[in-house]
């Protein structure tokens, strides 16, 4: 007769079952939350946030004036020095100006410099018109030529033109 008595002791307690259910539900919820996120999502979001902050900082440095492309040379200073020297020889030839001397060599940039200068020196013997012609050709040259000094000395039947200046490359 005892098999029908509802007062038979249960193998589990209700409180225990409820507590276990809550624990199980919490564990399942935690597992689902973990599964719903990619591996290392916090670190990736942190890294993205850091990079976006850097982009925001970089964007604040807007240029005051936009210079045309080619003002600064894209080559390394050493390669640009070689190119500049041969170009100066060519320009002097085009201006029909006998070349006396030409040189181009990179200067050491300062530590905080973003631009590395390549210094050049050019000396030709020509007429005054040849000087003007060479200056016109140099004014359209890329990268931009900066003239530091120009000396025009009148000689017998011709002028001696000595030009020193720089072009700028990325450091």
């Amino acid at each position, binding site marked *: *007769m*005892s*098999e*029908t*008595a*509802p*007062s038979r002791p249960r193998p589990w307690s*209700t*409180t225990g079952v*409820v507590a276990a259910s809550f624990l199980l539900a919490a564990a*399942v919820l935690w597992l*689902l*939350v973990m*599964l*719903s*996120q*990619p591996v290392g*999502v916090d670190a*990736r*979001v942190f890294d*993205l946030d850091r*990079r*976006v902050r*850097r*982009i925001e900082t*970089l*964007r604040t*440095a*807007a*240029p*005051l*004036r*936009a*210079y045309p492309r080619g*003002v*600064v040379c894209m080559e390394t200073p050493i390669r640009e020095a070689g190119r500049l020297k041969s170009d100066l020889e060519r320009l002097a030839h085009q201006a029909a100006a006998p070349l006396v001397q030409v040189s181009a060599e990179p200067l050491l940039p300062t530590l905080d*410099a*973003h*631009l590395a200068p390549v210094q050049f020196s050019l000396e030709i013997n020509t007429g005054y018109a040849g000087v*003007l012609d060479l*200056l*016109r050709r*140099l*004014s359209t*040259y890329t990268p*931009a*030529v*900066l*003239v*530091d*000094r*120009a*000396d*025009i*000395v*009148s000689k017998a039947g011709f002028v001696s033109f000595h030009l020193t*200046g720089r072009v*700028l490359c*990325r450091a």
Partner: protein
Amino acid sequence: MSPKLRVVDAPVEVALTEQPPVEHVPPARRFTRTIQTAAALPWRQRQMAELEARLGAPAPMEQLVFQVRRTDPWRPRAPGLFEAEYLHASGGAAQNRRATSFLGLDASRRTPFGLSLPALVLVGLALVVLPAAALNQAWSRRQDQAEALSDLDTRVLVEGRRATAAARRAEEARRLDQLHVDELSPGQVLKDLDWLSLHKRPDVTLSAVHWARGIAALEVASDVSPLDAADKPIQCAPHPLRPGVWLWGVALSPGGRTR
């Protein structure tokens, strides 16, 4: 908790279809009783009500089957009201089967947690389907997030390169501004030479022109000003450069470009 027992009705005849009829079975009697428990959690109230029902049983428990049923819905901080229902079944095994059938407590048909088989199947299905659906959704969300993060990463990479290039250009522009590249251009030298040619006095011969950063130094074989322009400052060196040759300085821009 007042143990007021009352006979609900006359002896109950319970039809058993699955068991053959038993001869000489004494009639079963049914009792009900109202039980009030203290305010507690619902399962605790039920435990207390069952204990009370067992304590206040109208006959020895081996002759009884009973069940406790909540009559009022559970409310917090309110006493619980239950009804205990007893069936006195002292007629042996067959009578017991009658009684348990009557109360719906047949041990052979009992299932875990007192649920019926369809309910158990539903619960089982729910236990399988719901976590599977949740798992699928979580995985899908994970994939979406990973994809979104990857897209964002690519965009940040591209924008970072763009911003770095723009910042470099800005820095270059700032340096070029500082260098005053326009004032040092060959075009500016041409302009200054043109200006000198235009304002040179016709009776003067320049033996040399030295140009540096907007300032021109003119070698002239005269101590009289070689230029007829009054809009730019012209100054003669205090002493001749060479015998018979004088050096004249002219600032071709205001103050000269001395940077």
